[in-house]
């Protein structure tokens, strides 16, 4: 089953919940599709945070467990999102998938909300472009380029 999420006219980001109190945002153009109960395929001898692939439009996408990537326990959730990202605008778009705990929420982010990365999740420094305070919680902006390295 594939869900559709409608974004409000003022929203410029998706808030993603990866479980284990790990949340972050991506830009609205990054998130391409939400898939409920995806048929993920297990790959042996892979990192514990990226052990599955998902077949999407004839492409085999790595499925990243961000909570595990940050040091949490590995999980298989019922929901994933397909993401498209590029290092530079001139580069080809690359694709991946992220396990989600909950459906994404459309939010609006401004520069005035800038704040330091969450202290309790120190690994974010490798995987975040920036960070802002959302409802009083430090919420990183994911650098998908480094997440999928």
């Amino acid at each position, binding site marked *: 089953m594939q869900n559709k999420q409608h974004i409000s006219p003022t929203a410029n980001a998706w808030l993603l919940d990866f479980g284990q109190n790990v949340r972050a945002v991506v830009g609205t153009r990054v998130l391409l599709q939400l898939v409920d109960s995806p*048929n993920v*395929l*297990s*790959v*042996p*001898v*892979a*990192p514990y945070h*990226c*052990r599955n*692939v998902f*077949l999407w439009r*004839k*492409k*085999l*996408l*790595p499925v*990243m467990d961000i909570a595990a990537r940050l040091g949490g326990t590995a999980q298989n959730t019922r929901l994933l999102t397909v993401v498209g990202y590029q290092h530079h605008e001139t580069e080809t778009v690359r694709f*991946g998938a992220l396990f989600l705990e909950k459906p994404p929420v459309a939010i609006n982010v401004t520069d005035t909300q800038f704040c330091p990365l969450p202290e309790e999740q120190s690994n974010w420094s490798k995987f975040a472009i920036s960070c802002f305070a959302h409802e009083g919680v430090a919420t990183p902006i994911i650098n998908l380029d480094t*997440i*999928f*390295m």
Partner: protein
Amino acid sequence: MNTQLINHHPEVEKTARLTISGLHLILPQREIRVLESASEVDTREAGVFSVGWINHDQKRWPVYCLSQQLSLLDTVPAERRVCALIKIENNYMGILCDNASIESIVGKWHDIPASMRLPDTPLLGLIVSEENILACASSAERLAAYVLRLAGV
């Protein structure tokens, strides 16, 4: 003795599909020397992390049992009914599997995504069939090197 000798046709690159608890491992057919019944494995005096020995070419060769995640098992699951003898230069190694078949594989080749590639992986790539069955491509050399690393040999 229940032995199936694999015929080699160099002009046709066929593959062997080893099924291990739902994992489909693909090797070039020419790298499989023989398929034996797992009952032919001599479990006495098994080496470290191996499950026994198999006789071939007047010598005995170590046999290993792998899980679906390609970790070494010291207890052989009942479904491992076949021993595939893989050829590595002038040596051999037995790999227990549930089933083994020779086929011309049909499917789309995918490189292993960079975020999933570990330096010691025995996998060369992933193959997805039209039925969305995932198979993992390897070679005898890579698989044997990986198993020996796991076994600390």
